């Protein structure tokens, strides 16, 4: 599968590399925020309120004199944490449902997939907003709400992939030597359906960042003074005329992050299945 025979095929991997670079920058900022950020994201300085970009504050200061660059860097932590947990919830929940439905078929499949279809009937942002209202506003609840939104997509993909794997002879062989259902599902099926699920996870990561930012923007996710790109943008909108950088910086950070994950997802899809793109 990999481009090992003809050496490294840059053209084929270019989207993965570009996406990986952008994602790498965001991940680096998130993990090493205390070392990368020039200031604390909470340090107030009322003498420096709403100052434009300068040598001391590369991306300016906000309405409380806090360094915008430092807050944007720390906000990457929130986004990455939420996205990571949300995608994990969606991936694990969806994969279990999809595999179980396809493996057992019949009534089990009908019941599980109908429930999944039902979740699909709600627009994602509406479902996330209603779940957030139900769970209460916090970063942890945002992770859970977004994760639930992802379950239907992963379930359908896992079911379709499992159905394809079930037709393979090695599954028949596993059954004939008396391997238990649980063992077949986790030892034989799961490793063989991971590739499309990982590709989907990269795309879901991008969507999770967008959803988390939208929830925080509406005041339902990360709560101030904790920085998140969504709440920074929401606050920044109040000072658009005097300090446009407060609106531009968090949006640009979201854009870079989402673009990175989208390119990574697209690139991985191309590399693992060149026909899919067409």
């Amino acid at each position, binding site marked *: 599968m990999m481009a090992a025979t003809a050496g490294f095929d840059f053209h084929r991997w270019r989207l993965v590399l570009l996406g990986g670079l952008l994602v790498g920058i965001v991940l680096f900022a998130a993990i090493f925020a205390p070392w990368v950020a020039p200031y604390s994201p909470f340090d107030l300085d009322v003498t420096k309120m709403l100052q434009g970009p300068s040598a001391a504050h590369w991306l300016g200061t906000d309405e409380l004199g806090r360094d915008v660059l430092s807050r944007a860097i720390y906000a990457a932590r929130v986004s990455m944490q939420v996205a990571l947990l949300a995608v994990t919830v969606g991936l694990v929940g969806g994969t279990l449902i999809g595999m179980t439905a396809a493996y057992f078929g019949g009534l089990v499949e009908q019941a599980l997939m109908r429930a999944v279809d039902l979740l699909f009937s709600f627009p994602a942002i509406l479902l996330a*907003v209603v779940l957030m209202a139900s769970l209460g506003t916090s970063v942890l609840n945002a992770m859970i709400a977004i994760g639930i939104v992802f379950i239907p997509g992963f379930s359908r993909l896992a079911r379709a992939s499992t159905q394809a794997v079930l037709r393979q002879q090695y599954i028949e062989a596993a059954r004939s030597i008396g391997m238990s259902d649980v063992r077949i599902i986790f030892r034989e099926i799961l490793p063989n359906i991971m590739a499309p699920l990982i590709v989907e996870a990269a795309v879901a990561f*991008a969507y999770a960042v*967008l959803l988390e930012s939208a929830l925080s923007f509406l005041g339902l996710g990360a709560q101030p003074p904790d920085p998140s790109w969504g709440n920074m943008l929401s606050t920044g909108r109040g000072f658009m005329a005097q300090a446009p950088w407060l609106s531009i910086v968090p949006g640009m950070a979201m854009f870079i992050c989402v*673009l990175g994950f989208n390119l990574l997802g697209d690139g991985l899809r191309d590399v693992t299945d060149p026909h899919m793109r067409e």
Partner: protein
Amino acid sequence: MIRLVLTRLSGFVLTLFAASVVLFVTINVLPGSAAKSALGIHATAQAIQRFEAQHGLDRPLLVQYAEWLGRILQGDFGTSFQNGVAVGPELLKRLPVTLELATFAFIIANLIAIPLGAWAARRHQKGADRSITFLATILGAIPNFWLATLLVLVFTLTLRWLPPGGFTPFTVNPVMNLKQMIMPALSLGIVSSALLIRIMRASMLEVLSTDYVRTAEAKGANSRTIVFRHSMRNAFIPYLNVAAVEFGFLFGSVVVIEDIFLLPGVGSFVLVGIINRDYPVLLAGALAITLFVLTLNLLVDLIASLLDPRQVKARNS
């Protein structure tokens, strides 16, 4: 065909019923007390008890649901806990705002996606195709609420061409209505076009590789005839399927955009319901959006079956 319609309709009713159960249960386990929200944080325990008894919130969830469903079926969406206003008429008043916004955004998305997607497919693996695919990737990564903010920054604060928000009905002042709607619709439409460009491109590529197109090319048909007469019409069937789902998605995404542009639509109604823990408002708004999306999916399903008889055959066999 009648059997297909009846099957789809029964599925639609069942899904709608199940969706109403999910929404009701999810919303009624809200941790923030509706009574506290309506009466203020200093409300006494007695006042809270009275409020809950008055609105039936102290009864078992199943009883509450049955009563709520019974009222909904009679067209009664209840009254707001916050201000006692009837929810049904308020929802009806807001529905056209959201519908106009979603439709406007959908038109913009298609105006961008159909020509660009078709062009990219026609110039497959050439410079134009690569540029358009890259553009779609860029557009898909822009958060619509950030784009909305940037549009306000440019067209309202810098150029002073457009108002920052608000809503004037089209029938009252069409020019003002369009001025107020253009930025919200652009924010939603431009971002939505990203997916539609890819779908249009993929649908066209599939059609362009078919034997009858190759035959037309071999017979010397010009590019315009091939694209417009032989390809586009057939590419539209899969495209419309996705586009209609995208329209539903647009209808559901209005929550954030309506909040930014102060549009009095269903999305902002849902948000007000959440912030105030106003169950009747939240339930009615969320149910209206879900009903719209489900109806749209049903229609798409039926229309696609009508357009493509193979789908009916496949389902029946």
